[in-house]
């Protein structure tokens, strides 16, 4: 079992989430996927995640609504929003709802990994653990 961060990838593009999951797994993370906001909420109710990668534009429940509901279920989880088009209003709304970061697709994998690392560090620091080593030891 992986000792890295637990990630949930939420995107309606099936291929996007499966390939990203492969990338995260080989990078030592534990990654699950969800195809809709509702599916994501169910998974978050049943398991604790460190970082959620959440698509903004999805049918039925959009990313902003999903973000608000995820934060109600688990206020500690860090959420990185992914979107196909940048929009200031959406970015402001994400920050208001407690989102950690807002990334524009297509995003280079290195950048995404760096953001996930930073989000994970933040979650650890909030819990009083200074580094991943502390987290692994505990």
């Amino acid at each position, binding site marked *: 079992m992986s000792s890295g961060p637990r990630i949930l990838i939420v995107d309606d593009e099936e291929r*996007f989430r499966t*390939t990203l999951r492969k990338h995260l797994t080989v990078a030592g993370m534990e990654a699950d996927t969800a195809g809709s906001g509702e599916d994501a909420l169910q998974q978050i109710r049943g398991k604790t995640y460190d970082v959620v990668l959440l698509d903004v534009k999805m049918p039925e429940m959009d990313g902003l609504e999903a973000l608000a509901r995820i934060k109600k279920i688990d206020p500690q989880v860090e959420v990185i929003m992914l*979107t*196909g*088009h940048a929009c200031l209003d959406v970015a402001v709304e994400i920050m208001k709802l407690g989102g950690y970061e807002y990334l524009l*697709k*297509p995003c*280079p994998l290195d950048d995404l990994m760096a953001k996930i690392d930073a989000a994970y560090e933040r979650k650890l620091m909030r819990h009083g653990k200074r580094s991943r080593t502390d987290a692994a030891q505990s």
Partner: protein
Amino acid sequence: MRMLPRWHGGQSTQPATAKMLDVMRHRSYFQYRLVLLYLAPLLNLLLAVGLLMRGQILFAATASLLALACFGCNRRLAHLVEIANAQKYALDQQLLQSQKLAAVGELSSGIAHEINNPLAIIGQEAEWMQYLLKDRGKKIQEWQEELKDSSQQIVKQIDRCREITHKLLDFARKKEPIIQRAEINKLLEDMVKLVEKEAVQKGIILVRSYDETVPAILTDPPLIRQVVLNLLNNALYAVGTDGTITVSTFAEQDGWVVIEIKDTGCGIPQEHLRKIFDPFFTTKPVGKGTGLGLSICHGIVARLGGRINVESKTGEGTTFFVRFPLGREKEVSSNVLRT
């Protein structure tokens, strides 16, 4: 005569002040202006002359002053109206410009979203291929299937981008319509036959209700076929299985021929109705629709001098009305030249 619903694709956005100032364009405005500015002071002046000839100097002087005051005030009023007119023109231009910018902004964000999603997948697949190939030269046989799968996915996503850009080009390209005399019932029936097989397979009943007295119209038949096929496809999608699609034609007394496509499908929620003709607006899942079909239909119908209307109720179904003018030959030709 049948009443058609409100046209969701083209509501007026003119501000109330601009509408109010429209009276200035009216012919009667110039008539009133003529009376107020010139005739009223002239009559006052004539009265003053008459009074002067009768030796009533005081009254004559008062009438003259009134004439002058009347002329001065009316001239000022006319000047203010002209300023208001110029301001209205400037406001109209600003409104038009901001509407254009809003439309471009909406279109750009739609394109960005539709193209960036496949690009994100292409990027990920390419990086995955790089990962597989990195220091794994000797074991390439083991990774061959995955490499093949990733490269196929890249081709698939490029096709998706290509479909979007080609549809956009079609949308933007103003193909000049070739106007021919067309029997609307025949055009409709050709398209109904095309989708009939699929409808039967899905248990959907296709009902024809053509008005045989509908006269021939002057239009571009392939463009109308494109519109009808798109609407029939949407109806099939909305019904899914086991429902009814009714295709009708009728003529209106005020010189329009109407094609009506009614389905008993899922219907369109009220909040989506005003967006359905917007480019890239779709409620279909990823890869099932680009959201350009209805906006292309709207563009085609407008270019042919017609209108497209919709009425819908969630859970009950949707009806599209496509209206084309009967039009005399000259009118249709001049309409085409303008497009």
